[in-house]
């Protein structure tokens, strides 16, 4: 098996690897590779972004079945990725949370569009100002609506981050360090002098 990409190269370097941490590294890469290559989205199209999502799924120009993703699973039990496409109203938020809970781990959330990322242009009583108030989001995609190419770019970026996800104790270590960083981070309103 000639190495055709980086992951393969690591497997080929078997005999040069040290035993400690070696097995976990390649299992992580393998699991990451498997997970990212057949990520099945759950249908959560709400508004205008849903139409662009449908274009990505079914228009021949922006076909995502090249990534193995054209099967939009209707049942969240069978889905890995929830693309929240559109504005989430206060009435819809509990439904969103229930669908997210019904998905089996590992699961990821892509907030598509300005309304899902931050409430968008609708800063009012009816819209949740960003779905990260309701579900944990892995990648935000701005745009109103984002072009299909932008959605594919976000999905590919998510693929790379899924590929790099750690497992087991490594994962817990990563979670801990991310939480530490977030707790000690400078809040946005204290970041002065950056407007210029």
């Amino acid at each position: 098996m000639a190495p055709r990409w980086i992951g393969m190269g690591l497997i080929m370097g078997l005999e040069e690897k040290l035993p400690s941490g070696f097995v976990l590294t390649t299992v992580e890469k393998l699991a990451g590779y498997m997970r990212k290559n057949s990520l099945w989205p759950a249908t959560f199209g709400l508004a205008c972004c849903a139409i662009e999502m449908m274009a990505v799924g079914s228009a021949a120009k922006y076909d995502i079945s090249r990534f193995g993703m054209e099967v939009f699973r209707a049942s969240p039990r069978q889905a890995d990725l929830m693309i929240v496409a559109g504005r989430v109203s206060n009435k819809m938020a509990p439904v969103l949370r229930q669908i997210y809970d019904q998905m089996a781990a590992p699961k990821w959330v892509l907030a598509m569009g300005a309304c899902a990322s931050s409430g968008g242009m609708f800063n009012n009583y009816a819209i949740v100002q960003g779905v990260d108030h309701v579900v944990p989001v892995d990648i935000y995609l701005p745009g109103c609506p984002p072009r299909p190419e932008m959605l594919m770019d976000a999905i590919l970026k998510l693929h790379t981050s899924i590929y790099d996800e750690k497992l087991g104790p490594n994962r817990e270590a990563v979670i801990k360090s991310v939480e530490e960083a977030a707790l000690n981070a400078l809040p946005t309103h204290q970041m002065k002098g950056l407007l210029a």
Partner: protein
Amino acid sequence: MFGTHGTGDTSGYGGLVRTPASTGSSERPYGSYFDDVADDLERAYPAFSDAIERVVVDRGELTLHVKREKLVEVSKILRDSLKFEMCMGVSGVHYPEESGHELHAVYPLLSITNNRRIRLEVSVPDNDAHIPSVVEVWAGNNWHERETFDMFGIIFDGHPGLTRILMPDDWQGHPQRKDYALGGISVEYKGATVPSPDERRSYR
């Protein structure tokens, strides 16, 4: 310092007169088919002047201001004798300055047979916001009346199921009234915040 006080007119020319909703009535002849409509209505409904408070013709459209007690009667006559078969829904408007007539409900009507459009308007006070329901005349108004109740708090007597339709069922308040805040939050940027649209300084 920011926000509008008074008229908010910064042009320097002053005199931004905020005209209240028109209280006058148009005079005959109304023009185009409006005279026919008014005459037909008077013929079919002798108690016309009892029920119709004002007739306004503005920008090519006829508005009949109806007393709320007579709304269903007038609607039936408009539908059956004057052939206004379709009602395009109910639209609520809240004029907080018009004490005694704060809430208006507007019904645009369409006659397919005669290719005409008119408008019915009913005004009710805030503390007694009841309007008889016209669902028995035009069944399509079912959801429209529910929406007007949801957004303005106008209670339609005789409606088969008057509940909230757009907001969650346990929402408090009626969002599209003028005394209900927009409910936005200020947006944080690095080093600045942009207030929500109803609190920004703006021109009126």
